[in-house]
């Protein structure tokens, strides 16, 4: 069955987007990503170390842009201006690549999105020709606003970044999805494979996660679990779950029982 995810006119077999932070080393990063089947991976943009480690290895040698869709993020940005600047640096770094993950954070304790700055940055980036996948809260009205501005994907948090608390507000995620005409990707909060499956069962188009794999006891094995969870959750959503009932309903025929 063909069931592809389309983001900004490009199609993906995998509905899992993986972050590249917090791994033990680049080999583990590469192995986890390969095992997960993800075709899109996020990276951060930071100052290059100067005057030391001149022969330091480069992340992009392990996850080549020829093989993966690289999604540069604006992690660590707390204002619209910082986030826009970061995206422009990413575009230069990646030879004109214009797909970005916008996240403008509110404070260090929660890393909750700052919505006024997120809206401002999204508009500036879209006006400058960027294709914006945007990290946001689980507010259906904000999600709709971001879609109307022209964001190519809206990415509500399941719970706080790096918390592993799962999907804390499934009803609002479902409300966002019901009204959306762009892909809805749950971004942040997934802690284990059942959380990812649950997000997909809600009807979400994909899941973006990092810590759930990178901080698992065995990251590569968890990457395998996530791949299966995303696929299972998606099929479960497409299949349509049975209705919930208050009382039992026997699965075996009630007739013909030997007495």
């Amino acid at each position: 069955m063909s069931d592809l995810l389309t983001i900004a006119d490009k199609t993906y077999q995998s509905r899992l987007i993986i972050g590249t932070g917090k791994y033990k080393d680049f080999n583990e990063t590469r192995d986890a990503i390969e095992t997960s089947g993800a075709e899109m991976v996020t990276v951060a943009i930071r100052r290059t170390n100067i005057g030391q480690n001149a022969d330091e290895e480069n992340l992009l040698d392990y996850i080549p842009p020829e093989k993966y869709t690289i999604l540069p993020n604006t992690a660590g940005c707390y204002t619209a201006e910082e986030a826009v600047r970061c995206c422009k640096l990413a575009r230069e770094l990646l030879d004109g690549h214009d797909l970005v993950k916008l996240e403008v954070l509110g404070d260090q304790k929660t890393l909750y999105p700052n919505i006024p700055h997120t809206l401002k940055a999204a508009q500036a980036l879209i006006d400058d020709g960027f294709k914006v996948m945007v990290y946001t809260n689980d507010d259906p009205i904000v999600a709709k606003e971001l879609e109307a501005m022209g964001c190519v994907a809206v990415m509500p948090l399941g719970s706080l970044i790096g918390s592993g608390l799962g999907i804390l507000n499934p009803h609002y995620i479902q409300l966002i999805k019901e009204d959306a005409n762009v892909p809805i990707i749950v971004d942040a909060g997934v802690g284990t494979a059942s959380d990812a499956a649950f997000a997909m069962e809600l009807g979400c188009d994909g899941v973006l996660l990092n810590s759930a794999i990178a901080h698992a006891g065995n990251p590569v094995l968890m990457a395998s679990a996530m791949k299966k969870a995303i696929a299972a959750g998606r099929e479960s959503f497409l299949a349509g779950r049975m209705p919930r009932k208050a009382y039992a309903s026997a699965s075996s025929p009630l007739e013909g029982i030997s007495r």
Partner: protein
Amino acid sequence: MKLTVNGDTLTLDGNTIADLVAQLGLTGRRLAVEVNREIIPKSLHGDVALNEGDVVEIVHAIGGG
């Protein structure tokens, strides 16, 4: 000339951004360079001369979520 590169003071022995990148041993790396908050495209690194006191940022991609 003296420059500020990624927050540190540095003395450049050449003139251009390409000279700076070479002095840092970063030639051929995937980088983006900003001079005084203005991004300078890679294609111009060999042409754009730096000036005393310029503030340069050099960034690359690292792991992130």
